[in-house]
């Protein structure tokens, strides 16, 4: 399966990209998918969302996942 991976704010600056399409399996977790893209990256203090819902870094994305987003600490307002 393919999913779109989005990186925002400092995550985008750190990774050097904003959006990427990746091949993965439903049993993979966001952490495994991101680590495969950037093995050196630290996701500490960052959250992750799958299809616009916050998700655990080490939980499988499942077969219906379309979009993963890396969410650094938010600062709206």
């Amino acid at each position, binding site marked *: 399966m393919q999913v779109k991976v989005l990186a925002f704010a400092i995550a*985008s600056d750190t990774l050097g990209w904003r959006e990427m399409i990746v091949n993965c399996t439903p049993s993979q977790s966001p952490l495994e998918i991101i680590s495969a893209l950037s093995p050196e990256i630290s996701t500490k203090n960052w959250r992750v969302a799958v299809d616009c819902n916050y998700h655990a870094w080490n939980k499988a994305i499942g077969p219906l996942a379309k979009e993963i987003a890396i969410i650094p600490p938010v600062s709206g307002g």
Partner: protein
Amino acid sequence: MVIEIILTESPIAPQPILASGRETGAIVEFQGFVRESEGDVKITGLYYDVYFAMARSQLELHLHELGALHSCDAVTFIHRIGFVPVGSASVWIRVMAKHRGPAFSLCSELLERLKMDIPIWKSVTPNAANIYSQQFKSYSQAEIRSNMP
């Protein structure tokens, strides 16, 4: 509770009060402005980046929860995206209710949740906003609105 969410590149303009009804006893409005300093650095403005789809869905989720906790009639939430110059409003909220207590509480808690969960980021550098701006225009909409009954 009637919910209106607007994420816009345009300057925030006060929204007309729609059909407040004769049972509305309190209207609480909040505006957040961009200050001229971030820490020790003088700035001309802030750049706001957003994950549109999730910001909208998370705002809807939180407003439904807050509406169940506080008896309010309507909420309008506006957040400006892209470059916001110093002295301009970046966020604007109006809560309408029968009584002031729930209106103040909902407004205050919404702001707390905005700063915890809503995927919007401010930056003093334009990098993110430039990328954002290109993506924003691909939506071919000046504003993203969400109205819920």
